[in-house]
């Protein structure tokens, strides 16, 4: 259990804001309004999963991110190849049960190592689907 942190000067600060707004402090739960316009729900509306994957692939290219598509069976091999491409001898990974589920990193130690930036890190698109 994480220890609770400290907060300082809150009351005077927030009272001052309420006073500037010309009203009493608002401490009860504020209900968000139903926004008059909600265009966010029209983005990619009705698109299939395959179409959304294509969107993802395109966007990855734009933000210089390599995109690999593969199957669960080939996933460990593809990941190994990517790591090798960057001369990655040691890796760092987040705690996520799916890594174990997909049998990733089972033969690799979880060690933090600083790796200098390599200009080889350019965006590439690969499709390793069977």
């Amino acid at each position, binding site marked *: 259990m994480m220890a609770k942190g400290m907060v300082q000067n809150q009351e005077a*600060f927030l009272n001052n804001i309420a006073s500037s*707004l010309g009203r009493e402090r608002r401490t009860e739960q504020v209900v968000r309004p139903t*926004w*008059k316009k909600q265009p966010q729900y029209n983005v990619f509306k009705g698109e299939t999963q395959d179409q959304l994957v294509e969107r993802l692939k395109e966007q990855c290219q734009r933000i210089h991110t390599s995109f690999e598509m593969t199957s669960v069976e080939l996933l460990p091999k593809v990941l190994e190849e990517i790591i090798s491409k960057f001369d990655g001898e040691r890796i760092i990974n987040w705690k996520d049960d799916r890594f174990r589920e997909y049998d990733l990193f089972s033969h690799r130690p979880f060690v933090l190592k600083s790796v200098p930036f390599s200009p080889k890190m350019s965006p590439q698109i690969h499709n390793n689907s069977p």
Partner: protein
Amino acid sequence: MAMKIGNEEFFGRVDKGLKNDFMRNAMVSAQERLKNARLHAAEELGDWEDWRELSEEIRQHTLENLDFYLEQLANNVTAKGGHVFFAQTAEEANEYIKNVVKEKDAKKIIKSKSMVTEEISMNEALESMGCEVIESDLGEYILQIDDHDPPSHIVAPALHKNKEQIRDTFEVKKGYQHSSKPEELALFAREQLRQEFLSADLGITGCNFAVAESGSISLVTNEGNARLATSLPKTQISVMGMERIVPTWEELEVLVSMLCRSAVGQKLTSYITGLTGPKEEEDVDGPEEFHLVIVDNGRSKILGTEFQSALQCIRCAACINVCPIYRHIGGHSYGSIYPGPIGAVLSPLLGGYDDYKELPYASTLCAACTDACPVKIPLHELLVKHRRNMVEEQGKAPFGEKLAMKGFALAASSPKIYNAGTKMAPSMMSPLVKDGKISKGPGPVKPWTDIRDFPEPSKESFRQWFKNRDKGGDS
């Protein structure tokens, strides 16, 4: 660096900007690039006006309930083990940050880009206690090693420099020996900064938006520097202006989308980072201690006034990228870390009319800024309100202008004086007229004729012209 840049008078700064051809060309090209990227991104997204209305409504709702959302944020940050400090003034904020730094015995501090830390002069405060503060945003890093050259744009602070100037700075300050190719320059900076990240004792960031419902802060970058500044050092301090908050992740998604598109025309920047509290037991990396400093520094005085909408700003600089005045005079002319239309509105509110009285007049009121703003701040209307405030409520107009206006009011309210004046004007001005125009005007007319000709006063008044026209005169 404080909010105010330098001590030179406004017109001196403007003259310098107008004479700096390189800077002006750089501004034109950057404005075109960024403006077109934004327009393209908006068109690609579709329903842009609906997105703007949604964003405006989110910002207005958040400001109207700011005390509630800030309390919710603080509760959630502390529940996760983070510490929150509410700072009424820049001094309070700096004092708290200095105390944390002292307690951690931190000597080297790595920082990601943050306007509010510049506004409160945080770097100077930390340097005064012997700390080394390193800016890790590439643009800010370039300016910092170039003897703290001031930023000229909110999003692209080193916009006024070309690659050769940057190369020279790297050579003189850091022993760089390669070409001015941007890739080589960036790689060099990256290598330099990587060492700084690894050896820093403490990381400081700004905050694009805090998320009240989870106690998170979000950071938007294209370089990934904010992630390193928040992953490697054991202590992290994030500093936010008190208005930079959204109720939930749903609103964050909307505003981040608008920020990225409006600032640089990207759907998303390369890194959108959400951080919640310090590292937990099972986390591999992250800070062991997290402090959030929430800064007022004059903002609460804007709340509840006719200028409240200025606090809707999400610091995208879309208004700057369309401003014809900024295009000509550049960012440094504004004398504030907040340049362009939003700077002309915000700087007088945060820094006072004494230092920034000219800025509301540094606008053609063409309203391009208002049209470009993704959160629909009526910028040109706020500039007019500033002008009215200064003249009518604060009496800040120059003595000569006051006298001229009083004289005009007297003349214009008396038909006899007005008629006499219009009749006398052509003969009084005749010694100054050459080839039908006045090129060297006296007194208050001089600033006009310094840059353009003044037409010769017509011998025929409008009333005479109208009368003659009725009689079939030659007018």
